[in-house]
């Protein structure tokens, strides 16, 4: 039995956790709820931006611009188009917040285009909402460019060779599905708080730990048992979240069984690293309140810069530097590569190496910070 006493602590913790199904459900369901809420609130591309078109010109190029906007409405649903004849009323509606922009195609627009003169389209946007405003400008520029290219092509045929034909390197991943790696990592983080350090601090708060400290259990037995039970619960919850996420978004693991085993491995390494980190940071807390306070903070500072929602490359330099050392960034990156790209070990070995080093450092810190006395 010597050296295996940590299994007793692990058995105890697992029994306690399984008798608190609400905790387990929260670990699994809360990240899923995040997936649904974040997925539907941020979205990848903006949709259904209400736009008024004031079409004062009925010529061919004006109609083409309108057709382009209607195509955006029918296809990617970027805009919802409404027509209005009175420019003043249209702008008032936009000012009142009913519309995100007003597109004015002035009289003589088609004529100007046909004659090669400078032809202008007016765009009044609700620039307080910078993201919507930018999206509308881009949509209209795209529509105008189509007219312009078509026009230019007739005079300068060489330009006709320039065309953009996007093609995907990997199978299509919609925005909801792209959030799955982040949600798995969030489940790992929440599990690591709810099962590991929270249990320990709560036991300490209730005085329960006192009866362990007077037994021959070593600090390794106690810390190892708490970590082992935490890793087990957290990993199972994260794998469950993976399958539930794929089920909700109708996705699949691209690399088959090997990829699935690699994913489970990454989940276990990430769980151990995060559990050890929370233990190192909060293991000496005397009140569960502290764990609650810091867990919310840690979740935000680790999850949002992890690349789970926005690409790390778009962050300002200081945040990019932080993200580089954020374990969740590497977990998200590795899971994303394996899950969606069917990447092999070589492709994710950098992330895995980082996670292993992080895990080792945190295990050392957790064992150093763990106190075996009152």
């Amino acid at each position, binding site marked *: *039995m*010597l050296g295996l*006493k940590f*299994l*007793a602590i692990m*058995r*105890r913790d697992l*029994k*306690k956790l399984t*008798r*608190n199904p609400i905790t387990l459900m929260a670990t699994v369901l809360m990240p899923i709820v995040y997936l649904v809420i974040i997925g539907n609130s941020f979205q990848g591309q903006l949709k259904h931006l209400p736009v008024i078109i004031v079409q004062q010109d009925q010529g061919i190029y004006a109609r083409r611009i309108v057709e382009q906007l209607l195509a955006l409405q029918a296809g990617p649903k970027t805009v919802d188009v409404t027509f209005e004849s009175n420019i003043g009323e249209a702008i008032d509606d936009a000012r009142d917040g009913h519309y995100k922009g007003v597109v004015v195609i002035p009289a003589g627009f088609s004529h100007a285009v046909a004659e090669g003169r400078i032809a202008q389209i007016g765009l009044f946007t609700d620039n307080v909402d910078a993201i919507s405003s930018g999206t509308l400008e881009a949509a209209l520029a795209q529509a105008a460019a189509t007219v312009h290219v078509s026009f230019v092509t007739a005079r300068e045929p060489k330009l006709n060779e320039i065309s953009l034909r996007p093609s995907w390197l990997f199978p299509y991943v919609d925005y909801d599905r792209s959030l799955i790696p982040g949600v798995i990592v969030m489940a790992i983080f929440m599990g690591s708080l709810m099962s590991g350090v929270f249990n320990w601090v709560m036991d300490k708060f*209730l*005085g*329960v730990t*006192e*009866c*362990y*400290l*007077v*037994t*021959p*259990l*070593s600090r390794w*037995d106690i810390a190892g048992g708490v970590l082992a039970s935490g890793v087990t619960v957290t990993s199972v919850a994260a794998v469950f979240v993976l399958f539930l996420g794929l089920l909700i978004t109708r996705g699949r693991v691209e690399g088959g069984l090997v990829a699935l085993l690699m994913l489970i491995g990454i989940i276990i390494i990430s769980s151990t690293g995060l559990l050890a980190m929370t233990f190192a940071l909060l293991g*000496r*807390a*005397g*009140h569960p*309140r*502290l764990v609650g306070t810091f867990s919310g903070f840690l979740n935000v500072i680790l999850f949002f810069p992890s690349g789970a929602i926005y690409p790390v490359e778009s962050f300002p330099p200081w945040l990019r530097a932080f993200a580089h050392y954020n374990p969740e960034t590497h977990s998200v990156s590795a899971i994303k590569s394996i899950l969606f790209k069917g990447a092999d070990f070589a492709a994710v070995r950098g992330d895995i190496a980082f996670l292993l080093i992080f895990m080792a450092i945190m295990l050392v810190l957790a064992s150093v910070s763990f106190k075996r*006395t*009152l």
Partner: protein
Amino acid sequence: MEPDSLAIRTVNLTKRFGSFTAVDQVNFEVRRGEVFGLLGPNGAGKTTVVRMLTTLLTPTEGQGFVAGFDVARHPRQVRECIGVIPQALTSDLDLTGWENIDIYGEFFGLSRRERRERGHRLLKLVGLSERSNDLVATYSGGMRRRLEIARGLIHSPEVLFLDEPTIGLDPQSRRAVWDLLETLRKESEITISLTTHYMDEAESLCDRIAIVDGGKIIALDTPIGLKSMVPGADRIDLEVEKNPDAIADMLRPMPYLRSVNRDGGNRLQLSSNDGAHAIPMILEAVDAAGDRVTSITVQKLSLEDVFIHFTGRTLRDEPAKKVSLLVGAGMPQQR
């Protein structure tokens, strides 16, 4: 007394928290098989003594030996020999009674068979066999305490430390715990260290009692021995028919009596070192003075009287615990 016959020995055992000395040069010995009581007001230092002897705190100075092992040098060996029932109820609410005992036995490296045999016997001893598969969350405070005593005995410890084992329990549960300790005492060679501030508990269970105050042992003896340390250990209440003042003046110089005081009406309160011999003399003297005794009672000093004699009547405020300015009561400094 040979050290081998000692279950507990302390040599100038001291614990300081910063500038505050919680335990100051404490010396005592407990023989194997003895029930030893540590009695003291709140904040006297008795729990700190126990925490040092159970390896939860490291002594600042001096030494403590339990089952022959130095608590500071060989804490692991000490832990293998002791059972501890802390003041707080520490059984896991989410586990059943049996699981609490079974898992605790695993901490001591007991085999599954040993745990099963001893666990069921102990659960029967504490009267919880019927409820052993129920979650502890469904137990009363008394049941939890009995379970914790069983849990503390799963590895057959040489020394059992109980810190305020009946605090917060109803009279029935207290009696049940007392009966359990009496049974243990009769049926095994176990040494029991009992920390309490219930006088009746200490008097009924302990072979010897150390009264602790201000971090020091101020008296140590058997309950009877402690009482005899107090001068005038017998209290006599006397009521006469006619003239209590004259009787009081007459009794004061008599042998066996230490003090004679008026106590309202025709009553007198006397203290004596030997009430049994004093009473016939008092009756004869009152009769000779032409008065008549209407009532007379003799009462031995209670342990509580002894306790008050040694520790005084002053209320004890424990020294203020340090609380972190940063995180409030979330992380108090240990004391």
